[in-house]
């Protein structure tokens, strides 16, 4: 398993006048509170949204991770779960929702389509939402099983636990390039979205 138990860094002390107190690192305390009550903002578009609903429903029960409070308003959300494919028409909407979320915020890209365009290598679909917004955890699958999403959520929790306030790079908003309006260089986008593997053969072969 990639998850390791965070070592306990806090200690409970009993003072002479019987009042208990806790000593811990501020980073740990803040990260612990953030990680254990992530409020998800489900940006559900397609099939993955159905598996996300299954994750939230009875059998898999997202409430075990402190996440049962779905925040359909981005302004009260901590983690954007982009579940499903994102066509170009939806790209500015996704970006707008990301901008509306207050820091600190994280993003889970759920499923192959959100992460890379998946099987939709065509004129309509964004080839990976990481060309628009920064992504923390990619969950593979088409769609991922609820267990897969839960594992991704646990990975995110671990990532949150390791954050340091002194690290200036963790709150990356991906500011757009003033000239092109793009969030990552155009050459990088073209490189990321190049067809790979079998899809080259399938679409360029004859009839």
């Amino acid at each position, binding site marked *: 398993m990639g998850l390791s138990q965070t070592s306990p860094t806090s200690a409970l002390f009993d003072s002479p006048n019987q009042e208990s107190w806790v000593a811990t690192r501020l980073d740990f305390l803040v990260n612990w509170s953030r990680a254990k009550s992530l409020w998800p903002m489900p*940006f*559900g*578009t*397609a*099939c993955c*949204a*159905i*598996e996300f*609903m*299954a994750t939230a*429903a*009875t*059998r898999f029960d997202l409430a075990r991770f402190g996440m049962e409070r*779905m925040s*359909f308003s981005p302004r009260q959300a901590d983690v954007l779960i982009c579940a*499903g*494919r994102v*066509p170009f*028409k*939806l790209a500015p*909407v996704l970006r707008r*929702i990301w901008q509306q979320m207050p820091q600190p915020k994280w993003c889970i890209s759920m499923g192959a389509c959100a992460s890379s365009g998946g*099987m*939709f290598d*065509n*004129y*309509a*679909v964004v080839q990976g939402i990481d060309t628009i917004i920064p992504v923390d955890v990619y969950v593979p699958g*088409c*769609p991922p*099983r609820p267990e897969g999403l839960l594992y991704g959520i646990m990975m995110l929790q671990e990532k949150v636990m390791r954050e340091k306030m002194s690290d200036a790079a963790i709150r990356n908003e991906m500011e757009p390039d003033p000239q092109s309006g793009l969030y990552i260089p155009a050459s990088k986008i073209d490189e990321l979205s190049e067809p790979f593997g079998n899809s080259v053969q*399938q*679409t360029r072969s004859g*009839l």
Partner: protein
Amino acid sequence: MATKTRTVEVALGTAGVDADGRAVRTPMTVTENGAVSTLEAPPLGPAPELQGEHMLINIGPQHPATHGVLRLVLELDGETVVRCVPHIGYLHCGFEKIGEYRQYNQIIPWTDREDYLNSIGNNVAFSIGAERLFGVEVPPRCTVLRVIAMELSRIISHLVWLGTTCIDLGAFTPFLWSFQERENVYNLLESWVGARLTTSATRVGGMAADIPDGWTDQLRNFIRTFPKTVDECDRMLTRNGIWIGRTTGLGVMSSDEAINYGLSGPMLRASGVAYDVRKDFPYLDYETYDFEVPVGSHGDVYDRYLVRMEELRQSTRILAQAVDRLPDGPVNSSDHRVILPPKSRAMSDMESMIHHFKQVMEGPRPPVGEVYVPVESPKGEKGYYFVSDGTAKPVRWRIRPPSYVNLSAISKMVEGHLLSDVIAINASIDIVMGEIDR
């Protein structure tokens, strides 16, 4: 069931607008035998002299009650909808374009993801269409398995509709109940084809896999236990004053209008038109199954709810008949034009290996022609239209999306209703954006 009725519940419903453009609210009662009756609407006083601007409100594309990425721009007079302009296309992924670049069997994974609540039903619909284009007949065991697949698919699709509609109208419990039953169906599907949601269960000329041992016992168990959940939801909602008040009289489509707008499925049947593709243009020997087509009489949201609840029961009936008649035998057609040779032969026999290679690399080629095969999907009449020019990839693969046509009537249905009723009407259409935008 002689339950003692408790009380007479009074709720408010909206029955259109009066001459002044105000919503007419009609008190309704639930009488002791469960019938819903209407009190005489109290006369409205003279309209107050209020002058105001119309207001615009935008719902979506990211909104929990739009079931995906639908966007509605509403012009409101106070709280009454004057006009509604829907915007779609936020999930347009170019399915039909991709279909022109893929062989017939390769398209099947896309059918999963198009109406993703009805994946396995789409697989079956696609295969029926492609088989007619190839001129292939499937063995009887395959036909019955496909009926089972379609009805399971109808059940899980209606369960999502039930759960999400209840959430939209403020009831959370049926969501949990219906998703629990969905997990049971998912277990069945998973042990059959290995996937929960995106099944890709069929091939042209057969199925991807036969059912495993003991599967029919699990299915029988589901058929036995599932009606209890339907009854529970039914007890909770059907005579619930709040539910009735929030659904009756909303989004009424008369039978003529419903036909003219091209509605299909439960939307059309709630308006009193008994058109069901399974009965009127049968496929998969549906004419030999004993089931009924529920028909509404008011064409409103409540009738659509009743029709879908009854369809859940009828689907269970069909499942029970199908599992009883399931014959032994092969699941794949023996037509070598579309079916791969067995792996053992492909590995040991040169002709079979060449055949296997050509099937996989070049793909089966249908004759020049075209077919349009409609099936009754949970949303309505879904049709796949293929045009072939004799090559291994279709010239045109068209999806006739039922919820796309159903949704196009929303502007008419919501006019004159309150803003909160828009949510109920929208939910009653049972839209799936994946199918609408494709």
